[in-house]
């Protein structure tokens, strides 16, 4: 009799692996397309704002909870007014976070102010939490001389070195490999902080997403990747973006611990991010958080989403699955918030935003010099020459030059 001797598994690169005896195309386990066996989603509050029985979560204290609620409501109000301002032609462009307020605010609340944020573009809630004023937002949108970005980027492309929020850069997913670099820097300095990189569902198709995940895993970089899976990339639904079970499974492919959370449940997001951040900083390894949500608003003011999705779908999410309302119900159930406070907040905030817009509109634009500064550390001679040439042209034809741009 011929006896088969089992050979050692150590010869296989990557460690020992159990062997299998055959390939069977009919075996369900071969298929990894999204099936009924989807990765479970962490959730704390039900649709009515009540904690679901049996869920484990850390309570937030009253002060944090109220601050979170106020920030989410502020973001909602600010977005709607700025959106209207764009429609009236006062602002050239705007992008709302409608439907996703829970993600940015709860994340900001769960992180440390030293954690460096690399945003995509729907994370204004983090800036709001960290102290960016309504006036700051308005100044950036109007590109006036008080804008921290000196009027060089389009609206919603906020950035604040001071608040550890990298300036938004339009191309999708370019911030993801940069997060590994930020994490590398933090690691070298031994800081108790991590890099937090945001991405949308669409951005996970970019090569940068995959390479960044791989890098972070291999380099053991303390990066927290947060994917806002809101179902739509402009007009592309997720069914046309990928065929995997969302984004959470992609982390596993790179050896990154991943979790899926209900993005419209601010309390769940807060808990998940707190736990993830602690893991990232303590173990100096990346973690991926997929926050499931829905983009209630249009992609931006350049988009009309009713052209590719039903109004009914949008309204359903806006009304019955609104993260702000859901969290409010919870906060009210704890008697930490009341209708009077709600009315007062909305009234005050509305006035504040409108005033900020009025002020921002009147502040003068950055002067001509700022067209040429900051291209390099110091203005080189060829740019000075170009500025001189431009000024000569303006002197010759002042009527053709916009009057609201100061020359000095």
């Amino acid at each position, binding site marked *: 009799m011929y006896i088969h001797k089992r050979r050692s598994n150590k010869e296989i690169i990557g460690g020992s692996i159990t062997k299998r005896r055959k390939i069977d195309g009919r075996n369900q386990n071969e298929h990894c397309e999204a099936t009924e066996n989807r990765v479970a989603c962490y959730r704390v509050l039900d649709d009515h704002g009540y904690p679901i029985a049996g869920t484990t979560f850390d309570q937030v204290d009253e002060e944090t909870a109220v601050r979170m609620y106020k920030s989410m409501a502020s973001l909602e109000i600010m977005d709607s007014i700025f959106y209207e301002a764009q429609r009236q032609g006062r602002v050239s462009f705007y992008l709302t976070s409608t439907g996703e307020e829970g993600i940015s605010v709860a994340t900001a609340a769960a992180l440390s102010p030293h954690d*460096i944020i*690399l945003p995509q573009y729907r994370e204004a809630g983090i800036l709001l939490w960290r102290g960016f004023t309504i006036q700051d937002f308005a100044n950036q949108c109007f590109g006036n001389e008080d*804008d*921290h*970005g*000196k009027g*060089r*980027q389009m609206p919603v*492309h906020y*950035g*604040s*070195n*001071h608040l550890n929020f*990298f*300036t938004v*850069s*339009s*191309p999708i997913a*370019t*911030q*993801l*490999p*940069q*997060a*590994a*670099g*930020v*994490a*590398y*820097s*933090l*690691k*070298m*300095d031994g800081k108790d902080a991590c*890099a937090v990189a945001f991405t949308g569902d669409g951005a996970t198709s970019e*090569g*940068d997403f995959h*390479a*960044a995940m*791989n*890098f972070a895993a*291999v*380099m053991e970089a303390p990066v927290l990747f947060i994917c806002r899976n809101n179902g739509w990339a402009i007009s592309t639904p997720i069914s046309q973006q990928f065929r995997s079970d969302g984004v959470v499974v992609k982390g596993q492919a790179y050896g990154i611990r991943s979790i899926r959370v209900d993005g419209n449940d601010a309390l769940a997001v807060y808990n998940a991010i707190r736990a993830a951040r602690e893991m990232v900083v303590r173990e100096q390894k990346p973690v991926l958080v997929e926050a499931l949500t829905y983009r209630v608003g249009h992609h931006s003011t350049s988009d009309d989403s009713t052209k590719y999705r039903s109004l009914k779908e949008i309204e359903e999410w806006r009304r019955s699955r609104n993260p702000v309302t859901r969290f409010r119900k919870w906060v009210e159930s704890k008697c930490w918030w009341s209708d009077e406070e709600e009315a007062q907040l909305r009234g005050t905030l509305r006035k504040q935003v409108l005033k900020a817009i009025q002020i921002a509109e009147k502040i003068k634009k950055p002067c001509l010099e700022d067209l040429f*500064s*900051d*291209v*390099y*550390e*110091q203005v*080189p*001679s*060829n740019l*000075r020459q170009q500025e001189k040439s431009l000024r000569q042209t303006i002197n010759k034809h002042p009527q053709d030059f916009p009057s609201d741009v100061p020359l000095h």
Partner: protein
Amino acid sequence: MAATILHGVGATTALSSINYNNSRRSLPERKRTSLVIQCDGSLSSGLNISNNRGAKLSTNAVAQTKQENVTASTTSKPGHELLLFEALREGLEEEMERDPHVCVMGEDVGHYGGSYKVTKGLADKYGDLRVLDTPIAENSFTGMGIGAAMTGLRPIVEGMNMGFLLLAFNQISNNCGMLHYTSGGQFKIPIVIRGPGGVGRQLGAEHSQRLESYFQSIPGIQMVACSTPYNAKGLMKAAIRSDNPVILFEHVLLYNLKERIPDEEYVLSLEEAEMVRPGKHVTVLTYSRMRYHVMQAAKTLVNKGYDPEVIDIRSLKPFDLHTIGNSVKKTHHVLIVEECMRTGGIGASLTASINEHFHDYLDAPIVCLSSQDVPTPYAGALEEWTVVQPAQIVAAVEQLCQ
């Protein structure tokens, strides 16, 4: 590959040391100190002299101020001999020693020491974190370098071959060049991106790219090309100390050039051209490997009675129009010799720039010798004919000076 590089460079080694001695004393009078000078003449004292170990910076060896000139030449040590890749490493190592924020990242830069050995030994000395091996994803490790730079580090990103950096174009153009500007000056990106490019010895079309053509338009970056061990070390140090993003172009065939360089510390200016051979009949502008073809042609030209002025432009963005201009005003004839393709290369931009600024001083149209607009063939003989040869340079000068 190493063998072919040595073979290819053998003929040029001797030339480089000759060139060097001439260039040390021959630039027109211009104020120099031991600090870095911008091309508009203003002194830049914005260097990160955070960890000055008291080493006296020697005078800029291209030209010297009167007093320092005398002291330097009488008391300077004879220097030490090394190859170009070693000079790059020496510059890199000195900067890493001086500033703990300087780090290197790229493929195989760690224990392998880099494909051209520029980072050899550094991982052993500074550890795996400061000399970081990355997975194969150029866009990603360039992006990583940018993120690190924005957070306070001074990374040097090595592309194994410049051609691969085409994959990093998005990060270089949209982020590296732009973020200082679009953030309103809040974030700076003191990154150095370097690697070998140019036509080698049968490396194939994809590994023979001249990326300076593609990158030259990106606002916000600086580009320099080294050509000798002396300027390689000086430019490496200057690039690392600069707060702007700098792309340092090395050439695959020049890594084994040997030269004697000073023992004292020195840093060159990123915006200056180098006077290789002063002359009066024609201004020959070149950079990187073509400098050697030009100098070889110069020997023949001198024998034929011509007196070419050879300038290694070194700074590809911005051009050193001060040095170039002075030369054009003297000779009134310009020949550009480059390795870029005819269309859209450095030569094309330089031609436009000189025409714009010095048109009145030209007695003849500018002649530009470039490679043809073809991918570099693998076959050796064909490859040789895509690169400008000394014979063509001689013929061009003869025709120009008629």
